[in-house]
């Protein structure tokens, strides 16, 4: 159990605006929503990827729909204008976050 990933209980999609990335994370089963809220905090995301997410991380909670929306400022290596990352839009950040282990 200690090796479960967020990916085992939730799905996600990333979007970008300029140098800002947002990732919404949704549990499959509403029963897992309290666990998701507990394990996936803004501070944890910021701490897990400090060189990538250089700005603030804000979490918005969609309790009715059992999802969390994370907004990361200065998160796209300068944004699509200057980033030389193959994924300059940060589309794959959804799976970066889903790859974090659940802290049970």
């Amino acid at each position, binding site marked *: 159990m200690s090796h479960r990933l967020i990916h085992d209980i939730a799905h996600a*999609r990333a979007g970008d605006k*300029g140098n800002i990335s947002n990732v919404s994370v949704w549990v499959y089963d509403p029963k897992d929503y309290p666990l998701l809220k507990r394990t996936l905090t803004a501070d944890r995301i910021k701490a897990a990827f400090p060189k990538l997410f250089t700005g603030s991380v804000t979490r918005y909670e*969609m309790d009715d729909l059992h999802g969390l929306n994370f907004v990361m400022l200065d998160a796209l290596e300068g944004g699509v204008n200057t980033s030389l990352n193959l994924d300059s839009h940060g589309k794959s950040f959804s799976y970066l976050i889903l790859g974090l282990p659940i802290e049970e």
Partner: protein
Amino acid sequence: MNKPLTTVRLGCGAGFSSDRLGPAVDLAQRGALDYLVFECLGERTMAFGHRDRMLNPARGFNPQLGARMRGVLAHCHANGTKIITNMGVANPRAAALLVVDIARELGLHGLKVACVEGDDVTHLIGPDTAFMDHPGAVKDVGLRMVGANVYMGAEALLPALQAGADVVIAGRVADPTLFLSPLVHRFGWALDDWTALGRGTLAGHLMECGMQITGGYFADPGYKDVPRLADCGFPIAEVQQDGSFVITKLADTGGCVTPATVKEQLLYEVHDPAAYLTPDVTANFRGVSVTEVGPDRVHLSGGDGSVRPDKLKVTIGFDGGFLGEGGVSYAGPNARARAELAAGVVRERLTRINQLGGDLRIDLIGLNSLHQTAEVPASESADIRLHVALRSTEREDVDMMLWEVESLLCCGPAGGGGYRGQVTPCVVTHSALIDRNRVSPTFEVFTA
């Protein structure tokens, strides 16, 4: 004036500039739509349109406009479906004239095609125009400005709809506005009925990315399976007078519409769910309920809005020079060490020997690339591709980089193969705000 309707059926025929055509033709043919919307204009697509127009004053609109119209126009005409699109990009007038020509070719005489203009605000942008997303002003960028366009709202599209246009071609309008405008037109919503505008904007926001709500960009095998993804259909919204709606798709197409596909799209590119800003309204996506009411049918109700912003967002595009990308692959025993050696050789030759300018990045695909900056542990792959990227205003620098990467075939580590290289033009965009009252949308109708 159209008679009052209980339901307006909107279809999305494209969610980005290179989206598929076939599923749009399916909707035109069999969707029983009131409106078919093509959303084809990303943040940076406009700057490329300006560049195309500078090279040829008759261009600057979406390159697939002709193919799309040849595919759907006759079906839409036969079924009473009107078309709304931002495929005009930097030249809506030339785009409208092309559609008139195509309509005549197809024998659709009398078809009314409107172009909507007024979004090009290049003349309002000066060296001291300050950015909203970035410190500094236009003069600090150090690149040639190619054009600036403001995100216009429903007020820009409504006059063309009221004039009875069958096809409305705009440049920059807010993406959800493409869907909201026909709802305002048909339902007679007031432009300060913030609740209705908020809900119509919600419908538009969910529809604007096409298949991203019908199972596209969703599949994760074993976790989120999508039936017949290769045949995925584009979405349909059945909208009621009160702004509630059902998202669905044609029954015989692939893909799926579920609460999960809807929720992922609900917050796509959204920051504060309670304050989604468009030129029309400050939409509030909190309190929206998402309910499965049948196979591939999801009902949305609730959602709200409040007063629209006083200032409108402008995207300013600059010529960004060139991006060069070249690569060579290494596989088998000790592939990682050989690829890392190749990366070191390229970096040394580019910086020490060629003293190249511009921004350089080297990735080892298969080991760690997309998440390199995130410092995710490297994979154990023995099939690794060296990928070198350089952006520069100087074409010569980019060409030199590609030459260095290709030279690895004989001069680099053992067993490298599969060189490819390409150069693509770049644009840089920044955003600014201008007062709403400085923007004056206009339209003109052409008859086939």
